[in-house]
Structure formats: structure tokens, C-alpha cells
């Protein structure tokens, strides 16, 4: 359940932003989480409600964009989609591939007032 820590980190970033950008309340938090980031989306949703209580993001909705995992196949010389870190190339079967995206965890946007 490191998702709780991740939610706490999200709240910290929001509090810093509140100081920098001068807002009082957050209505919506939009995150981008890669499929290979090792994050359970459901645990994140559960943690978010618990962790944001009595903070500036109390009651805020959480929107999570799940970003696909992509990797570079040195054999086919193309970018391919992967579901797991150790997936072989879906077109030629080559492994290992060079992971290019999918392990990101970002706060993308906030709706604030």
C-alpha cells in the first residue's frame, strides 16, 4: 500500500502549489499513472479519499489517466506497446526491449478555486 504515500505526496505538491498560485480549494485532481508504474489504481482512489480529508483537497474528485507502457524494439526498429516490463516484442518476439514510457506518475492538472 505505498499508494497511501503517493497520495500524501500528491497532497504535499498541491499544498505547495496553493502557496505559489494562491488558491483555496481543489475541486479536481488529474493524475497520469503509467501502467508499469507499479501503482494499483483502485488503492490510489481509496487512499486519495482518506488522505485528502481535512486538507485543501478535501472532497476533490480524482481523475486518473492510465498511460500505456511502450518500449523500443531494437530489432524491428519501432516503438511497441507492452503490458509488462519483461514483455517481448509483439511483432518479432525480440527481448529484452528498451522501455520508453509507462512508469510515470505525474500530477497533470488541478481544478482550483
Amino acid at each position, binding site marked *: 500500500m505505498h499508494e497511501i504515500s503517493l497520495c500524501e505526496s500528491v497532497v504535499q505538491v498541491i499544498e505547495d502549489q496553493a502557496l505559489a498560485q494562491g488558491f483555496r480549494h481543489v475541486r479536481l485532481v488529474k493524475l497520469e499513472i503509467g501502467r508499469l508504474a507499479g501503482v494499483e489504481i483502485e488503492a490510489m482512489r481509496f487512499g486519495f479519499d482518506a488522505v485528502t480529508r481535512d486538507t485543501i483537497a478535501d472532497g476533490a474528485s480524482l481523475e486518473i489517466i492510465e498511460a500505456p507502457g511502450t518500449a523500443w524494439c531494437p530489432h524491428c526498429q519501432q516503438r511497441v506497446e507492452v503490458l509488462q516490463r519483461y514483455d517481448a516484442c509483439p511483432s518479432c518476439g525480440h527481448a*529484452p526491449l528498451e522501455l520508453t514510457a509507462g512508469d510515470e506518475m505525474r500530477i*497533470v492538472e488541478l481544478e482550483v478555486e
Partner: protein
Amino acid sequence: MMCTTCGCGEGETSIEGHHHYHGHSHPLLDYGKGVAGGQVPGLSQARMIRIEQDILAKNDGYAAANRQWLASRGITALNLVSSPGSGKTTLLTRTLHDLQEEVPMAVIEGDQQTSVDAERIRATGARAVQINTGKGCHLDAHMVGHALTSLGPEAQSLLFIENVGNLVCPASFDLGEACRVVILSVTEGEDKPLKYPDMFAAAGLMLLNKIDLLPHLSFDVERCIDYARRINPGMQVLQVSAASGTGMQAWYRWLTDIRRPVVAGVAEPVTA
């Protein structure tokens, strides 16, 4: 040290020698001083703001500060991760015992509860501090920063950070270490690298421990190493038995090699 605006106060974590793990409060959010410093018409209107910030940016900031603190003292830190029961503490106590004449060493122990492990470490004569994470399932760079100040490892030493036994959660948290070492024992499944790929993906070394037990098990060493390399082709693998001592010399050589450039980076020990 590196704790200017830290967000602690979770209250569950404690570091030996500290009554509380910093009760310092969050910075005061002064809403009267908005962007324009006062009553801005329309301030209460909802608006969207782009942030594009990594969720772990804070942790990574603390990790960078730890890394700088360590580098300036020529200290090599290793983040030891594994499942519970892989033999991390036994491996450490043997290492501390065997190398204590040659290398200054210190240990940060992470566990949810008890200081049993730190006591085992201190019994070898090494300096150690225990972090209890309470309900937390991993160490983070902020806790480690506090532990560093409380421990005060010697300049040019080797610092072992024994993470909470867990192959999932510690994976995302950079502590400021020079290298992550994952320990897998042959009494576990050989497919663990595939089941917990994130942990293996970021490790520089895998220690396959308890190999003295191989004759009694059906563990396929080659297959395990193959799985690990599928996740992380560049990872080194050493087979050891902390109990019998088999393979430990190769581990000690690896420690010497990883330490060399860090120590060379600081010609004179920094006086604390």
C-alpha cells in the same frame, strides 16, 4: 539538515533517539496572500492549472539532498531490498564482521516495528540506527535524511540501508543511494523477478542468498538468473551464502569496486 518544508507529521514513524519523528508542522497556508497579494476579484472562480509535476518530486528532492550529503563525505550508500526472511540481516552482520578491520561501516535499519535488527547490527560493533516506519511499508528519502543526521556515519564509510522487507513498495522510493541491491534467497520462488519486476528493474546487483541450501531444494538457479536478466539485462548477479560464507568474497570485491570512485571523489575526510 535537509528538512526545510517537509511534510512529515504522519506520527507513525520513529527514529531511535528521537521521541517523535519531527512533529514540525506544515508551512502555514496564508490564503490572504494570493497571486496578487490580496483581494483579487474573481479569485474564488474555479480555474484549471497545469502542474505536470512528478508525484514523487518531494521524495526525489530529499533523495538528491541525501546523495549530495553522502557524496560530500565520500560515503557509499547501498539500499538493500528483499522479501522478509531473505537473510538480509544475517548477510549484513557477516559482512560487518568480516570487513570491520578494512572499511568503516554503518547501518540504517528499516522495519515496521522493533529495534531487534539494529541491536543485532550493533552487536558486531558497527554504528546503527533503527527507523520504525509504523504502518509504512517502505523507507523514504526524508526518513533516511533524518537517520543520516542522527547516525552521523564516518566520512568515506560504507553505509548499508536495510529497507523494510517488501518487494513492492520500496521500489518507487529513491533514498539517495549509490546502488540498489536486491537480495533473493533460494528458499523463495525462482520466478520472483517476474512477479516483482519493478524492484528488480532498478537494482544494480542481485544477491542470490542461502545457496548452501540448494541441494535440498528444487530451485533452478539458471532460470532465476534468466528471469532477472529479462527484467534488467545489465544487473550483476552473485551467488552467496551468508550462513556458510560461500561466495562472500565476490560480494566484498563488489563492495570495494563500488566504493572506489566515491572515496576517490573526496580526497580528504570531511570533519563533521
